[in-house]
């Protein structure tokens, strides 16, 4: 049976390769960053097992690794150099030669993922566990990536080393931004464990009538938007608002459908992302790129859409979550 752990080992190995490419280029901060990040993938299961048995030093070491990643990211020299003009010309030649065949491996990733999920479901109904039934989508995605890579290597006639080098180039371009969703989720867990959600929930309980379904929903939606505007990221707002209002009040008390609440609640936060300069890479960077005189020009252009969509989301939440 294919377990999700195999995919994690694959990620760990790729991160080590990325560290190696950076070491060869003598970019030591990058080398350390990817090498440290490889540890939760290579040893994650062992660390969690040890922690469950009461051996706590590996988990504590992992905690130190998280702090080290923060310190390395703060050094700010995790930047890449721009590419040469000859590389652009070579890409244009190759694009003309390969044509639409280039789309096939890219489209193969989602297509194969979907197919594998369906196959796994069918196999499971026949009592044959091909893919870990706990994580079918993720295992399928990992397997689809491997298959798509083989197709891409065949299409481009490139060597596997080349694909690892190009993968590393993309990873380096992302830099610390690649880590942000994972870290924000970690912060969410820490907030939950330290009672931040409970504190907010108790403040909300004082402020709004928790018996009222509409009042709770309004507080949740408003909170998602305000937190997202302040933090510039719906990912960061989600765990706080879910732990504070969504789970205790809407799901457990008023019986909201968790899948609907999670999905549309997150998208409500996205409406906030469209409104805030804190989401710099989406709202401020393009204004600079397009040489707009007003740095809030893009936000102004999408504000009416964001507000109208927010209203639609509230209505959708009200009717779909409490079916």
């Amino acid at each position, binding site marked *: 049976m294919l377990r999700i752990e195999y995919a994690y080992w694959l990620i760990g190995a790729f991160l080590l390769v990325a560290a190696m490419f950076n070491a060869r280029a003598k970019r030591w901060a990058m080398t350390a960053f990817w090498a440290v990040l490889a540890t939760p993938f290579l040893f994650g299961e062992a660390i969690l097992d040890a922690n469950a048995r009461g051996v706590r030093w590996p988990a504590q070491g992992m905690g130190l690794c998280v702090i080290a990643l923060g310190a390395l990211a703060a050094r700010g020299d995790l930047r890449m150099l721009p590419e040469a003009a000859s590389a652009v010309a070579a890409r244009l030649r190759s*694009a003309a030669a390969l044509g639409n065949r*280039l*789309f096939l491996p890219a489209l193969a990733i989602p297509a194969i993922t979907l197919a594998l999920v369906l196959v796994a479901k069918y196999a499971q109904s026949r009592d044959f566990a091909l893919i870990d039934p706990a994580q079918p*989508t993720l295992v399928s995605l990992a397997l689809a990536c491997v298959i798509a890579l083989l197709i891409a290597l065949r299409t481009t006639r490139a060597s596997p080393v080349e694909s690892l080098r190009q993968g590393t180039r993309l990873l380096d371009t992302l830099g610390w931004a690649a880590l942000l969703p994972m870290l924000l989720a970690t912060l969410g867990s*820490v907030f939950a464990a330290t009672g931040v959600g409970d504190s907010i929930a108790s403040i909300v309980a004082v402020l709004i009538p928790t018996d009222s379904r509409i009042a709770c929903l309004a507080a949740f939606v408003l909170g998602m938007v305000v937190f997202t505007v302040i933090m510039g990221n719906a990912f960061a707002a989600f765990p706080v608002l879910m732990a504070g209002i969504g789970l205790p009040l809407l799901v457990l008390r008023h019986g909201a459908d*968790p899948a609907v609440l999670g999905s549309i609640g997150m*998208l409500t936060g996205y409406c906030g992302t469209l409104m805030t300069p804190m989401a710099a890479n989406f709202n401020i960077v393009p204004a600079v790129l397009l040489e707009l005189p007003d740095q809030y020009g893009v936000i102004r*252009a999408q504000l009416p859409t964001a507000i109208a*969509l927010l209203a639609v989301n509230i209505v959708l939440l009200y009717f779909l979550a409490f079916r």
Partner: protein
Amino acid sequence: MNYWPLLGVAVVVAGFVTRRNPVLVVVVAGLVSGLAAGMGIGDLLSLLGTSFISNRALLLFVLTLPVIGLLEHHGLRERAQGWIAGFRSLTLARLLVNYLGLRQVLSMFGLIDLAGHAQTVRPLLAPMSEAAAERERPLDEANRMRVRALAAATDNVGRFFGEDVFLAFGAVLLIQGFYERQGIHLEPLAIALWALPTAIAAFVIHAVRIAWVARSIRRHNPAGTTPHAAD
């Protein structure tokens, strides 16, 4: 109740407002929140470590990078640009509505970074939008900027309200992971499908707005041209 852990939220807000490195802000916020809750250093470190490991599924997209990197190196982006540029005889509204739809569908299939402000909007969509608008009427400076901003906004809306329908997108996994830790088991597919109504609403709302802005630009009177009477 101990309200001091809320200091962690304050650190996040202050850190983002003062534009510190987000990774550092998040790590510091976690430490502050834990210490304010009265946790010991050992407990806090192992909490950080185990939470980090439990959330590692969020980095699964890294496995797509060797594939996408290789294809990009062989001209995937250039090919995509050439393909989109084939639709040259479009009006501003049709061009942007088509791009919006295409961007949403690509994002739904996880091809989120195939397009973007640097990759497609600046080199391709913005110039094409200006050209499409100018075919109908000459643009003054203010309207040219409106067209550009609308192009960037269209990319954002298409991206945001398509990606959540993709099964393996980070947001879907974040939602699933949150419930899983609270003992509620959900399939990612169930979460992703509930993003569809909002995705459709986003398409309709933004398409109507594109048409409205395009119409207002078409009817706008650049300085020096004869005004229409009672439009």
